[in-house]
């Protein structure tokens, strides 16, 4: 009897530990898939807002857009960047903690948590528009129902991966906020910059530069993470005339050291910013000494925000990468 009790207690303790491990594994895979998943459509906001137009947001949900938009809440840094570029930062009354660095956000705006925002605060603010990404909706289908019932127009823009989707997001947000023209300007600007750098790459290729192989890391050892095709960074790399060593895979993935070392990239990029010296860490990795990029010291840090946020600012990341791949074109 006692032995059975003891066995049960030990069993529970052991289950608690391994349950945690499995929960952690599940949480990580959920997080990873949330990046690719859609918002899981809501039940279509009601028309109680006395709204003008009806739009369909990128997650497929039909929303009623108010005629006058005075206050905006935005819970994703990429969306905050788009709002700021549209010149509407002054109307932002609440943004998420990761967007603190975005320019032009309202002075007295509330800072909320992206994944579990303070609903009471949001209700008190009662913004005309709430912009969220899929990262705010991982828990339930529509956690913002109360806000919608109170009159806020909630638009969900799932985290985009490709450049085409990013352009679509910009167009949607611009249209939503009544700044269609500005939105088009931003997209045009983006395309121009992208063309500028890809032309540069073509020039270099014609001059006999050859195709460089690239490995772009978004998480440092021991959990190496990178991406394959279908991700905007991969598109940018390809447009720069280089080749992502993982282009045979799709989406974001964790990789084994051996695969990277065997692929022997010419250039390594990292946007890791949570350790002091990400470039140094890569250069000093045991077993990586023979990698071309390491031997030549071609390991570079790319701005985290520009390379992690699917907004018009990805061109900055492209510029940095171009500068590293074709230094002859960048005299500084």
């Amino acid at each position, binding site marked *: 009897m006692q032995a059975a009790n003891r066995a049960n207690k030990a069993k529970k*303790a052991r289950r608690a530990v391994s349950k945690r491990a499995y929960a952690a594994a599940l949480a990580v895979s959920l997080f990873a898939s949330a990046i690719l998943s859609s918002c899981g459509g809501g039940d279509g906001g009601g028309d109680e807002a006395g709204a003008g137009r009806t739009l369909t947001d990128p997650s497929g949900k039909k929303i009623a857009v108010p005629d006058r938009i005075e206050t905006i809440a935005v819970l994703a840094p990429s969306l905050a960047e788009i709002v700021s570029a549209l010149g509407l930062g002054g109307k932002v009354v609440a943004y998420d903690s990761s967007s603190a660095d975005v320019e032009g956000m309202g002075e007295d705006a509330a800072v909320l948590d992206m994944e579990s925002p303070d609903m009471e605060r949001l209700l008190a603010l009662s913004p005309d528009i709430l912009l969220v990404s899929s990262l705010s909706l991982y828990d339930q289908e529509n956690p913002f129902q109360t806000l919608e019932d109170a009159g806020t127009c909630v638009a969900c823009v799932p985290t985009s991966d490709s450049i085409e989707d990013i352009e679509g997001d910009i167009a949607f947000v611009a249209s939503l906020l009544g700044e269609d023209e500005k939105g088009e300007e931003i997209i045009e600007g983006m395309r121009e910059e992208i063309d500028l750098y890809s032309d540069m790459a073509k020039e270099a290729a014609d001059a006999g530069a050859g195709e460089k192989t690239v490995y772009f890391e978004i998480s440092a050892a021991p959990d190496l993470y990178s991406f394959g095709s279908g991700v905007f960074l991969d598109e940018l790399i390809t447009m720069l005339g280089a080749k992502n060593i993982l282009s045979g895979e799709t989406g974001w993935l964790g990789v084994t050291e051996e695969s990277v070392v065997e692929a022997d990239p010419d250039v390594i990029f990292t946007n890791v910013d949570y350790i002091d010296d990400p470039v140094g860490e890569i250069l000093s990795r045991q077993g990586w000494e023979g990698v071309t990029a390491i031997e030549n010291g071609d390991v570079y840090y790319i701005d985290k925000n520009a390379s992690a946020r699917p907004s018009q600012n990805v061109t900055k990341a492209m510029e940095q990468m171009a500068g590293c791949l074709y230094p002859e074109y960048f005299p500084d």
Partner: protein
Amino acid sequence: MGHGRAGCKGGAGGIGSGGTEGGPRGFGHPQGRRVAGFAALFLFAAASVALGVLIGSASLSPWEVIAALLGGEDQTTRSLVIGIRLPRVILAFLTGAALGLGGTVMQSVLENPLASPFGLGVSAGAGLGVTAAMAAGAFGSLLMPVAGFAGGILAVFLALSLARAMDVRTSSATVVLAGMVLSLFFSAMMDLASAMMPEYAQRIALWQMGSFASKGWRGPAVLSVLLALCFAIFQGKATLLDVLSFGDEQAAGMGVDAPREKRRLIILVAALTGAAVSFAGIIGFVDLVAPHIARRLFGASHRRALPAAALLGGSFLVLSDLAARTFAAPREIPVGALTALLGAPFFLYVYVRGRGRE
């Protein structure tokens, strides 16, 4: 008394009946068979390590690998084999051996076939230590394993002190209970830290799942010394462990100060497991299953079960890690998620087959 007691004697501790050797059926097996059995186990362990070194996600042929080990091939291949694969395989083996050993001792000391070194708070304590180190910005440096090790030991000390405060005789039940409470508490603190610092949440979760990637030679160096030391001590105390598994009263009757010996053993296991966990993260299942399979194949006597569990645990983890880095290459699957996936069917097979033989 003695043999019939639900403890760790004979086979899958208390669940099944007597094992293949020793136990209620007497000591009838010939010496030669035991030696042959161990020889086979050594071969299995060696083969596992060899497989681990020869196969990987890089498409190298076995000959290229051997050539690289001997100093040939180009720099990249040599670096890959000697700098990446070799330390990884060795760390996996040492970790598995440490966990197998720790599990065996723990199950005997706590007279519980489901006891685990992790149940005393080692994993939760180590996790908290590592989280604290991460938050202090010491990601990837030596501070992380040291903090993890310190956290694990601290947790076990607290568990033992708590148990002693609750029960002067520190019976096994009390120790398990104290360990569980402390585990839950430290785990909760880790969860809180993850929630308060969401930028670390993913990395903490990934660390918890365990990985042998990019650990360098630090882990194998430290762990080999610690393992050798602990193994020598445990093996020396093999008879003591046999006696302890009879229960406290029995042990006292044989002149053994059970509570004190148990505390010492638990602290040693904590040190060993804490070190293993702090380098590789939390890898479950090995500590539970290796001892059971060892006892089922080699009998309950610790003189044989200890080395068997170490060899089995080591081989198993090497093979699991091999799977983790090759099944979905170039992707890497967390090894902690694989151990139960691969281990459970294997454990069931051994258990059911052993049962059928009786």
